[in-house]
């Protein structure tokens, strides 16, 4: 267990001395592609993840977001391009291998067991034990203390870690899963649509914890379909559409409006307006869509 503590310390050291001074990225994907049989699920995806930076992957349903995270999380292997961890070319064969490389994935629905207390959830599958042989037991007090401390560092202040985690809000539950990944030595945190099922306020809570994780020196990959969630927290943005990368931007090179336009697809909206017009009788809707096209189209980059 001492090893774990040291892990934590190196992580904190990284915070002060980010890798950005060196050309090596924590993770980097260069023109990565994946096909299932003759179906091309993803092609030409390029992105980099650094300590203390949030890389957002944006795209609609079926854009290839989940294929991309499955490659990074070790569930699938890529067929094209290169995938480097700390400058070393890798192909991950299992989620375990990804975890051992410091890549932790927090899935939207697979985070926690609702009826179990927070501290039991926090250490589930990696319980701290004490004692020998048949008397080997969980170190309950230490687990509770660590849970409380780790959650406090993420900005979740709880009085009682005995509470069933189901009593927490959706956002807070997500955050416990994030804190858990951070504690167990994650250097790269992949968040799969953490805000998709949440209301406006709860989404704000989760976004705040994404920033907390970033400030603790982690490289965060934030997958979402909502540019309004991505833009405030992201440092880099990869846009995917129908399995292809349609843009990769630094924050300074793009505005929220441009991002939204790219996501919504100005051209498609124009087509929709045209179709509705042909059908007739949708006057209000057509006007609305046209207004949207006007609002976004002018900003279309490229």
């Amino acid at each position, binding site marked *: 267990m001492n090893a774990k503590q040291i892990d934590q310390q190196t992580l904190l050291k990284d915070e002060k001395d980010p890798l950005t001074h060196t050309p090596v990225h924590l993770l980097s994907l260069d023109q990565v592609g994946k096909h299932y049989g003759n179906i091309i699920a993803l092609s030409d995806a390029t992105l980099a993840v650094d300590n203390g930076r949030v890389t957002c992957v944006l795209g609609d349903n079926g854009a290839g977001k989940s294929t991309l995270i499955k490659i990074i999380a070790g569930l699938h292997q890529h067929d094209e391009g290169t995938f480097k961890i700390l400058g070393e070319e890798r192909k991950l064969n299992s989620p375990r291998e990804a975890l051992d490389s410091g890549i932790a994935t927090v*899935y939207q629905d*697979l*985070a*926690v*067991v*609702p*009826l*179990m207390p927070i501290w*039991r959830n926090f*250490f*589930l*599958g*990696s*319980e701290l*034990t004490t004692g020998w042989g048949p008397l*080997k*037991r*969980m170190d*309950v007090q230490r687990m509770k203390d660590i849970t409380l401390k780790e959650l406090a560092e993420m*900005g*979740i*202040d*709880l*009085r*009682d870690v*005995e*509470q*069933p985690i*189901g*009593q*927490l*809000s959706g956002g*807070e539950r997500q955050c416990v899963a994030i804190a858990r990944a951070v504690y167990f030595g994650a250097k790269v945190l992949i968040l799969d649509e953490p805000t998709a099922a949440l209301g406006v306020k709860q989404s*704000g*809570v989760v976004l*705040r914890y994404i*920033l907390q994780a970033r400030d603790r020196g982690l490289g965060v990959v934030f997958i979402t379909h909502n540019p309004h969630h991505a833009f*405030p927290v992201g440092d880099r943005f990869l846009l995917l559409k129908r399995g292809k990368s349609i843009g990769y931007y630094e924050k300074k090179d793009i505005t929220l409006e441009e991002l939204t336009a790219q996501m919504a697809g100005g051209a498609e909206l124009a087509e929709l307006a045209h179709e509705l017009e042909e059908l007739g009788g949708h006057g209000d809707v057509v006007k609305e869509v046209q207004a949207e096209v006007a609002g976004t189209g002018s900003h279309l980059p490229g």
Partner: protein
Amino acid sequence: MTQTLTKHLAADERVGKRNPLQKLLGRPEVGALVGAIVLFIFFAIVSQTFTQPNAFATVLYGSSTIGIMAVGVSLLMIGGEFDLSTGVAVISSALTASLFSWYFTTNVWVGVALALVVSLSIGFINGWILIKTKLPSFIVTLASFLMLTGLNLGLTRLIGGSVSSPSISTMDGFKSAQAIFASSVNIAGVEVKNTVFIWIVLVAVASWVLLRTKVGNWIFAVGGDANAARAVGVPVAKTKIGLFMAVGFCGWILGMHNLFAFDAVQSGEGVGNEFLYIIAAVIGGCLLTGGYGSAVGGAIGAFIFGMANKGIVYAQWNPDWFKFFLGLMLLLATIVNLIVKRRAELK
């Protein structure tokens, strides 16, 4: 950005304070405990003999024969499964020990050891089929319930030539096995059956495993959300199979008690008892859907069962009323559990 961040952090989402009473009410076994106390007082008032030490020892004995199984069944239920084959599996275990020892005229202890293997195997097979087929435990264990019922009757007649296993009371090792599984201890002039002590030890061990070991953590997790448990590295299949085998172990103890309390076993017995164990676990606060409950709760459930069963006799009522009573207890307990679960899940 940073300003809003610090502002948000200052106004954190605090959970409301819970006073100690609320905390106590959140425990899985509290409904059963209240029920047990009410029931005890009730029978103490209506029957003079109920609180006599001898009568109470009988109540405890009745409770223990349900309670020993309820320990395993409670754990299994917390692990998200249940087992309909327990009632007849107890008899299968007893029949294995008696028929094997009798047929091969070996020392009784050889049969006892073989019965343990058979009991654990029944549990293993139940669990293994469940994991492999992903069928609900209702179907899997209903099938094994029917098969074991048939095997008990068929094999007993085939080997012993009767519906009851032959008497083994004169065989080697019978006395020592009887001393272990079916004797009584004299405490201050009251004969207390040793199953009561076995029961208490089992409950203590199960509670410790459940609350203080990582296996216990896994049991809660596989019952609460097996997918989430798998995602964080809990060996779900092993945990579930292990739970079925724990039920098998409890069945072995009770089977041996049934055998050595007399010297023969009726091969058609045990049918219907599986529900008594499940009822004890449910009254004790274990959720049918898994992920919640306690071993102590199951024990209290068994105690309620024992009190109701014997109390009606001591109160000199018609025992016909017992089943009605049991059904009512079950309904009330389940409603309490439902409320508890809703409170735990919803904010």
